[in-house]
């Protein structure tokens, strides 16, 4: 709240960017509420992200947030859980390295096993989504399939 005492221009900026979850007075703007990540799809999302390039944990979070247009609400701890699990299963590999800001960071990289797992999960997801979408798009009273 101290920031509210800053320069005027900054103030507006800040208001717009405040977290909607904590301030009930702020109406929802153009962006809808972020979706909680569906159980079981986090792995797929992480693996997918890693096919672009190896990333450390925080970069992964930023990437997902950016790419999803902030529509997904990601619990950071859950992300690390997923990463450690997948590392154990051999879907990703991790190595300590140095980030752009010259800091120590643990970089995650997708493995061949991870790639095939990703392909499998993607195929499943797309089929599942299609099926569910089709089902719930039907209106009652429509012709029998």
């Amino acid at each position, binding site marked *: 709240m101290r920031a509210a005492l800053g320069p005027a221009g900054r103030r507006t900026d800040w208001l717009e960017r405040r977290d909607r979850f904590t301030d009930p007075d702020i109406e929802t703007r153009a962006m809808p509420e972020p979706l909680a990540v569906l159980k079981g799809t986090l792995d797929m999302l992480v693996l997918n992200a890693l096919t672009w390039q190896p990333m450390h944990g925080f970069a992964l979070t930023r990437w997902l947030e950016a790419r999803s247009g902030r529509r997904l609400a990601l*619990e950071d*701890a859950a992300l690390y859980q997923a990463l450690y699990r997948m590392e*154990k299963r051999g879907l990703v590999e991790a190595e300590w390295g140095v980030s752009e800001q010259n800091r120590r960071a643990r970089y995650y990289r997708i493995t061949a096993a991870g790639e095939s797992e990703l392909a499998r999960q993607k195929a499943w997801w797309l089929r599942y989504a299609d099926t569910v979408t089709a089902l719930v798009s039907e209106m009652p009273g429509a012709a029998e399939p």
Partner: protein
Amino acid sequence: MRHDVDEEIREHIALRAEQLEAEGLDRASALEEARRRFAMRAETMRGLYDAALERNRHTRMTERWASWWQDVRYAARGLARDRLLAGFVVVALTLGIGVNVTAFSLLDRLLLRDPPHIQAPRELVRLYGTVTTAVSGERTSSWIPYPAYQQLSEAITGFERVGAYRVTEQIVGRGMAARKLRVGQVLGDFFGTLGITPLRGRYFAATEDEATAGRLAVVGEAFWQGMLSGDPSVIGQPLVVGEATYQVIGIAPAGFTGTELRRVDIWLLGDTRRAGSTNWNIVGRLRAGTTQAGVSAEAAAVHARTSETSPDWFREANISAGPIRFDDTGREPFEVTMARWLTGISLVILFVALGNVVNLLLARSARRRRELAVRVALGSGRARLIRLLSLEGGLLAVAAGVLSLVVVRTVEPLVRGALLAGDAPWTLTLLDLRLLGMLAGVMLLTGFVVGVVPAVQAGTTKLAAVLRDETQGGVRGARVRAGLTVLQAALSVVLLVGAGLFVRSMARIDALDLGIDRDRTMVVRAELPPLSRFTQAAVDSLMQHERRVFQLAVEAVRALPGVERAAVAVGLPLDGGSFSAGVHVPGRDSVPSLPGGGPFASAVGTDYFAAIGTPLLRGRPFDDGDVAGSEAVIIVNETMARALWPDSDALDRCVRVGSAAARCARVVGIAADVHRVGLREQSSLQYYLPLEQQTMFGGATLVVRPTVDSPVSPAALRQTVLASDPSFRIAEPQPLRQALDGEMRPLRLGTVAFGLSSSLALVVAVLGLYSVMAYMVAWRTREIGVRVALGATRAQIGRLVIGTGGRLAATGVAAGLVLAAIGGRRLEPHLFLTSATDPIVFGTVAIVLLGVALLAGWLPARRATRIDPTEALRA
């Protein structure tokens, strides 16, 4: 691990806080917000720690496997580079391991395993009788006369069950297809006492006996499979054994031999009516609570009470009980003793091989010291290095272990055949748990020694000094290697001495004059149908018949090409003494009794002495004139001539055979002494009567002397004899030599075992010596170069090298001779006329080993003398 997780999360939160700061928050709020977003609750952290722990554990395992695999590949590559060395090591270890597994497998079967199919064999005992005679001293035997068996089996309460058996060789089948097989006869509750279950059919019941149940037989599984083709309907079929036909009522399980070591082909139900004068082995199962000693005492008491029923030679016998695994003389069977020896020898071979292999590997790791030092310097870690070197040793041991199965498969049947003369009741199965267990054990031992020793040596080398090339010749390593070489030499000496002693014994046996031509003489044992009634008339007519048909047979044989001489004889040399009949000489009160026994009698036909090769020293052999009606003549042996008529000529003297009232037989010839019993024999009184002039002795044999070129074949002999008269049941030609086989076997086995193993050990030891000296030259190249530069002659260099090797060899020889002298005591009873510390053998072995050592050093010495000082100093 927690540290890692904490750091990762800390970084994440810091970056998040940075992002938030960039968006306008102050630092403190940004940090707080970042933490909140991370959802850093207690259970979250715990969850992360757990996940990280599992992850780490998993990666550690995969990493470990990967590094092991990498080391194995590196070790394999390293060995592939040194192919010659690796090959030699594997061969040496394969032989060592293979020989050990073979020996253990035999020892296991003969000693450690219980006799097959018998229930609780520890509860079984065998009865032994110890008899003291004037001639042979104290003798223990498990053969007990039938009357004594009857008394003992009924009266001993310490036996829960008891039975008796005897195994003899009998003819099974007829004519050309007849075979001599090992046939057991059984009385009482024999099968019940042993507690076995039949494969098929049933066994004889405790109360059954040929008198009541008829002629019944139980066949062994091997016999059933072999000679009866495993026909399942064999139960109830007839079987011809000897003269009679038996009915098969059951099949014994595979490998069953009763309590014998060797196979038994058929078991027959004994006949109590005819058992009277025969001897039996008595086996009983101890009642719960009784001990062997208790039964011994009880048996002695029973025998003392009932001794009048026994034949007089057995009345004073001491009865005792002993374990069933002893042989019929109450001692451990020779086959078992031999198996023990073989195990010992195999261990010696293994140690020699190990010593040499370790030597070679130490030399190799010394050669590689720089490479290894660099590895450690680059961060490999000593532990990893030790692991690597151990892996090399381990790979070699594993390869050798697997290959050793091939050795076992080849060698074991040979040794088994030699030990049990082809009568082994079992065959080798490689997939046996105990055998594989032994293999694993020996492999572990080998792998440990071969892997650890060089590894430890490498682990204690000073790295920096190696890299600077300053090492002072790895002094401790060199001492270990020298010690190993000395050990190998000593062990080789021990084995060589053993071989030498046996060879000497064999030579002495060969040189022994047995009084016969043992190399050429063949003996044909032909059997006629035995008597069913023992009346005097029946015996007389059989003897006449025998004489007639054997005369036909010998004439037919004489006509064969390839036969130089042939004769009929009753009572042959090397037959265990056979016949003995007292003689009376006019002018003497008694005939002297010699340590060798006697007087042994033979009844021989014409041409006998020429056929069997016994020289006639004086006088003449029997001829066609010496028949029933003509003058009674006799031929005596040299000892008898000297004993009875020491001061005068024996020829033309009178001898009364049998009783003082018998007619005089005139001495017409003096024959050389022959061995009547076996190899170890003392002089005895021997005489010969013409076959036609006596009626006391029956059971004739043919003696044949084949020609030197194209001698007659045994098959031709057999056929001719069988064809000469239809009453011949079977005809078995055998070299006379074979009678000695029983006594020769331990010596032959000892010679082969020690001979082979000592050659092997010698080869390995020589290679060890060579490698030590070659290594020494390579290591001290610079020093030698300096010496040469300073004026040393080639001879001096040569002496330096050979001196080192010579000292090692000499130490080894000395130690080995001492060991051999100590251990030789145990060999002595099995040697023949050779002392266990025979100086010629010891001396020869010492010279051989030293000579061989010099030879081994010759090549490295030559190389040393050729060292160019400038090259050496530059290296």
